[in-house]
């Protein structure tokens, strides 16, 4: 009877006696055996299906055509989302705000106290109505389209196309896959990094995942792009211009992902990019029913419920802040006022900063929060509907400029991950430190970049009212 320690030391000694490449020998033996068995069991006649797949792959993964196809697909997905979402959002907003008016007048008829009516309808309900009308449409369009690409087998091709870029940044080629998942939800993107073997490269992928805008942030980008960048255009051109702006923002996000990966792999997470094999699966016909189920029930409704659960308390907080008198105005405006100087440093304003603070639990409620603070926490009877009304409110009454819009888009792209993602990062890395680093890196980048653009604009004398 030998002891475990003895067995281990024997194994150690035997390993040293083996040729240094014995691991390769094991792999080779397995491959040789596999090929022998396969030769006996597999018989091939002709190569019909393979040809079409290969022909498609030549285009989709070609050095130039691959990038083009990727850009076009991204643009189409965003354009579908933007143009569809604008129509749906307006209809939903009309319906939900109308219901809110009904509810309010019902409360008034029964003689409910003003604070109850206000808290329920101008606080909690308004928060919910905003979130649903702003968030649901883009998700209901983006997720099914994205899932179709996923089921087709396109995503690994993206990783294949972007591999050289990530390798140059010292990161893992599969990071392109986790980055793409981040477009749906950053928390999901962080979980998906488990496919990356090396801990160093996995950490890079986790820390930089937030630089691609998730679905919670798309509504912010879409609204800003529609109201500001595409203002002055009409008809189908509006959606096209707005979509291009959102695509540009996504590309800037990819740029920051690569830049930050490069910086990390030369500072905190030094090392070489490791090699890996990536299988390009055959193209498969997507199962439409399953796609609708997964994308609408598992993804859209799931994310929407999460957003609603943070929007209701946020709405309540905003209403309370907006109705506690403070000096001549409310507490909300006082806080916004106090933060204003800080916000202007970055080309933003105090209200936007306050909205971001209230929206830490979930990015998706930033725009609704901002709107509710601007409109005096629901004291305005008419909620702004449609791009024109929003533009009039922001530009006319609150002095927004193109710089405010651009910087808010940049800030929204680069700022800290939402609470869910931070918790996911903590769970995946088992380290408070890395979770904290992810916040510092993103928030630092957001403030730095917006500070630079705002200062540049000031120096050049652009948008004086925005600076």
């Amino acid at each position, binding site marked *: 009877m030998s002891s475990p320690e*003895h067995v281990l030391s024997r194994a150690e000694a035997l390993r040293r006696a083996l040729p240094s490449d*014995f691991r390769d020998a094991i792999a080779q033996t*397995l491959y040789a*055996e596999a090929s022998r068995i*396969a030769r006996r*069991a597999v*018989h091939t006649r002709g*190569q019909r299906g393979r040809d079409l797949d290969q022909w498609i792959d030549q285009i989709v993964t070609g050095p130039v055509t691959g990038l083009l196809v990727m850009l076009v697909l991204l643009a189409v997905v965003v354009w579908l989302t933007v143009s569809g979402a604008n129509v749906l959002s307006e209809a939903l907003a009309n319906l939900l705000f109308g219901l809110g008016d009904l509810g309010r007048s019902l409360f008034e008829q029964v003689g409910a106290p003003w604070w109850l009516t206000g808290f329920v309808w101008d606080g909690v309900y308004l928060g919910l109505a905003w979130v649903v009308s702003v968030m649901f449409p883009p998700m209901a369009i983006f997720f099914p389209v994205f899932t179709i690409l996923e089921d087709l087998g396109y995503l690994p091709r993206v990783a294949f196309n972007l591999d050289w870029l990530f390798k140059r940044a010292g990161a893992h080629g599969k990071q392109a896959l986790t980055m793409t998942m981040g477009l749906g939800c950053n928390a999901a993107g962080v*979980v998906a990094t488990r496919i990356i073997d090396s801990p160093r490269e996995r950490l890079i992928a986790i820390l930089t995942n937030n630089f691609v805008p998730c679905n919670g942030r798309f509504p912010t980008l879409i609204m800003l792009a529609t109201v500001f960048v595409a203002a002055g255009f009409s008809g189908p051109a509006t959606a096209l211009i707005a979509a291009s702006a959102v695509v540009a923002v996504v590309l800037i996000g990819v740029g920051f992902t690569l830049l930050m990966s490069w910086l990390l792999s030369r500072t905190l997470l030094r090392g070489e990019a490791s090699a890996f094999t990536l299988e390009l699966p055959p193209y498969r016909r997507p199962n439409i029913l399953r796609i609708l*189920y997964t994308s609408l029930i598992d993804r859209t409704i799931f994310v929407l419920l999460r957003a609603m659960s943070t929007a209701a308390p946020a709405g309540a907080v905003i209403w309370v802040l907006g109705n506690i008198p403070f000096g001549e105005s409310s507490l909300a405006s006082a806080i916004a006022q106090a933060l204003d100087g800080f916000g202007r440093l970055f080309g933003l304003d105090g209200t936007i900063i306050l909205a971001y603070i209230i929206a830490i639990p979930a990015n998706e409620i930033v725009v609704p929060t901002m709107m509710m603070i601007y409109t005096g926490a629901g004291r305005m009877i008419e909620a702004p509907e449609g791009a024109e009304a929003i533009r009039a409110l922001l530009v006319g009454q609150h002095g927004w400029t193109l710089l405010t819009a651009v910087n808010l888009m940049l800030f929204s792209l680069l700022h800290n991950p939402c609470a869910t993602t931070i918790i996911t990062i903590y769970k995946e890395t088992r380290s408070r430190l890395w979770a904290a680093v992810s916040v510092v890196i993103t928030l630092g980048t957001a403030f730095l970049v917006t500070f630079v653009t705002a200062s540049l604009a000031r120096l050049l004398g652009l948008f004086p009212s925005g600076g």
Partner: protein
Amino acid sequence: MKNAAFVPSESCATCPAFAQLERMGIKMDRFDHVIALAGNPNTGKSTLFNALTGLKQHTGNWPGKTVRRAEGGYQFNGVRYKLVDLPGTYSLLSTSQDEEVARNFLLFGQPDCTVIVADATALERNLNLILQILEITDKAVVAVNLIDEARRKGIEVDTRALSCDLGVPAVPIVARTGEGVMALLSSVADVIAGRLQTQPRRVCYTPQLQAALDELVPLIESLAPGLPNARWVALRLLDGDARLQQALLSGELAEIARRQHVPESRLSRQIAVVGQQ
């Protein structure tokens, strides 16, 4: 491969005519057997998992989709099975997290049977993993999936020759449509009940390595008598696998070996639960 085992396939002898499948979703508080679902990424493990359990674990056409382990249940011919969908891996030799999840479950979770899902259109690449899994467990059935896609591409897979070579049943299936799934389930039931004797193919390594294994295997077997995969453990120890070194030192391996001698299936249920942690 002179000393490799050859066993004629019996998978065709199973008759699924009266088989009954009941999908039990996540209701699996009581189950009789634990089935692991292993295989390369993107071979349709999750599709098969969904087809059997009635659950809607998301499937996607890219390798690495399933990074967490999913569990569900099904009932077949009155017997309840718990199905564990493992992350897809190309091998069990390296130490990335998904490979570790899959390997640890196969070794320490002690499933009653492992269904290895293989892609009929890329069988050779899949065999690499199949051979590695057959080193760990001898209770296995190979499900040759996507047989329809293979047919379209002019690829014929002779599953009878395959099960002959591998020493475990090989069943052609199309997980998406359910074709062949009943035959697969009855093969699984037969393997568990011992009606179908498996004798998995064990690869023959280079003479030097083989000599090292020959020395190490008896040592391991003396510590853990009856361990079904002593040769694989020896291979991993030669490789310096930290998890297995720890399992050897802590007596975990001896514990696994002890459980091998208890034929009662009720016990395997407890072990499977332990293995989940």
